[in-house]
């Protein structure tokens, strides 16, 4: 049995759309799992001590990215807000911020809530969600949270129907890994899947035919799915708390595919989990590896 907490139609205002130094749009998976973990901690502190949120899926019903494109512009620009003035009243040199408004449904796999506690549990979820931030944005509203118990992949449809209509992320790291095994570096491997390839052929009659195709079908996008430790673990001056081991890190970005949940057939294709890979210094939010 798999148990899920469903938080339907959660509206988030001004979430962080700068998901990595290379991408803009849907907030990073690390931000969603981070929010879910923060909720777990609040509930742990509020008498649900055994509760664990082990995995999560985010179905995006709507996203409104705050960029603008001038007439005739090829590229968009970020709609920024002014940073606070510095001590001398000067405007600091400007670092742009990107934000988005979202409407999502969360499906959170949980363990450790007794059968008799479900009403109190749902009430606590409602209470704590109203006091939280998610992906850097404010939670404006959400539908009634509910609990759902399914018998693994057999009853998977009961779960996906709660997430419709919307789009969930399927990790497609294996596409990029394969291209890299064939010799492309990470940037070329990624761009090759994101671009439309215009090619021409001359047919038997000598006619020129131009075609436009992507490398593969499906709505592929670059996504931020974790962090890569690039410094040693240790203590640093000015770290947020002096007791937790600190290190410098960078975003890990790979390919993902936005699909409608009804297309998926297995829990492993829907759920994202966190894992620390000490050998590679990776802090990952990942799906069960497919063909990788």
């Amino acid at each position, binding site marked *: 049995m798999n148990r899920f907490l469903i938080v339907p139609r959660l509206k988030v205002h001004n979430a962080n759309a700068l998901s990595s*130094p290379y991408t803009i749009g849907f907030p990073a998976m690390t931000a969603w799992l981070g929010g879910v973990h923060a909720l777990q901690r609040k509930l742990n502190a509020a008498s649900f001590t055994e509760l664990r949120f082990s995995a999560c899926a985010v179905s995006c019903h709507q996203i409104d990215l705050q960029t603008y494109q001038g007439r005739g512009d090829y590229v968009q620009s970020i709609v920024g807000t002014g940073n606070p003035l510095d001590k001398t009243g000067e405007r600091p040199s400007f670092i742009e911020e990107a934000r988005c408004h979202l409407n999502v449904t969360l499906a959170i796999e949980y363990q450790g809530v007794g059968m008799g506690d479900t009403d109190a549990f749902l009430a606590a979820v409602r209470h704590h969600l109203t006091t939280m931030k998610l992906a850097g944005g404010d939670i404006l509203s959400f539908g009634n949270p509910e609990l759902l118990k399914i018998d693994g992949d057999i009853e998977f449809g009961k779960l996906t129907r709660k997430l419709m209509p*919307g789009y969930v992320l399927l990790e497609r790291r294996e596409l990029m890994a394969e291209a890299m095994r064939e010799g492309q570096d990470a940037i070329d491997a990624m761009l090759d899947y994101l*671009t439309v390839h215009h090619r021409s052929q001359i047919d038997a009659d000598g006619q020129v035919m131009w075609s436009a195709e992507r490398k593969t079908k499906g709505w592929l996008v670059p996504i931020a799915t974790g962090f890569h430790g690039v410094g040693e673990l240790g203590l640093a001056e000015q770290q947020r708390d002096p007791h937790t081991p600190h290190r410098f890190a*960078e975003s890990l970005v790979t390919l993902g595919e936005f699909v409608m949940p009804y297309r998926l057939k297995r829990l492993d294709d829907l759920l994202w989990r*966190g894992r620390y890979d000490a050998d590679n210094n990776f802090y990952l939010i990942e799906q069960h590896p497919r063909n990788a």
Partner: protein
Amino acid sequence: MLDPAIQAYLSERKVTWLKEKLKISKTEAEQQDIERTAADKFDLANWLPDAAKRAGQLAMVTHPGKFSHPGAKTSSVIADAERKADGYLRTGNVAAEFDVFGNAAALDVHKFLSLPLSDGQTVLGHLEQDTPLIRQQFNIPTAFQDLRQGLLSIKSGAAETVKTSEKIKQVYFPVDDGYHLLSVLTPSGLMFKLKERINVLRFSEAAKQARSDRRNQIHHEQGFDELYNLTVIGFGGTKPQNISVLNNQNGGTAYLLASLPPTLELRATQALKTNFFLQSLYLKDYQDKFKALHKLFLDTVPNNIDVREGRDYWILQIVEQVMEKVWAIRELPGGWSETSALPPVQKIWLDAANAQRRDSEDDWLDEIIVAVVSWLGIAYKKAVGEQKAIPIGDPESRAFRQLLAEHREVLR
């Protein structure tokens, strides 16, 4: 023999310096004096010890803090990671340049260290490996090891105390026995490498030529790749040099790739009166997709896996588009269908008031599958023309039925 690259570097700097100094008309004696000074100043024996002294004012890094916030002062990070075909864009998986920040007046030293010598290796690379070639090049009165240490201090960041900043995003990540605290920095070398590659796609001569050939329907050997939905982000405003050297070289802007799902148009539409398929679906919205499907129906090997996958892909694309209308109608306040003449099963399917029933019952869904399959057949014929359309015989309509039975949840 001084390496030609070093030679050229010094004379170039000398010329620039002289131009500046000789701008205002001077007496001949003064001019001669200035030229003598220049000759001294840009003689390797004098310039190098001075550069070695100034190198410490710069820091070579892979992950500068100022991209997070111009006021963030972090210790220098020089990251290195093994290359692996792991499917991640990260340090180690792309050859990228170092970034530099520090006193702008010392940036010439960084330029000098980046010079490739006759064997392709940079001055910095030679110094790090302490090669005989660089010892021979730096054969001046000042002790070589002093010069070397001075110049290498550009990379000494790793030795200082580790310092993050409250202006950097610091993230807790759960690990087995607690948490690690991660200060998330920008790998500017990677970020600008991405910009470079995108600019080749957009602006290279080859791409321009190929684009023009396509417009004129002329054959082009390589073709071109088009990237859509780019966003520009700026760092440092009017003073990109305050952020870093690479930022300044890139005019203070980088590209962001779009990471967005398809848009769902779920705005409530008008309530309908008699039949969803007749009143809510406009054939021209589906024309292109039916044509793509038609191409695959015409394929002589219909059981080929690519053909089958392509066929399924287009059918589901069409059905998802139909469902967008359904979902939009469901946004209407529930109960509207009671006064309509809709078939009962469509009332269940479309009216928000029946959400519970849709969730718990399945009979209506079987009926809807039949209705949608029938609409697909009719719409296909109309979209490609009665004459051209291949008769929707058993295999084709079975394909519709089977696929929708398998993906019935989309219709729920």
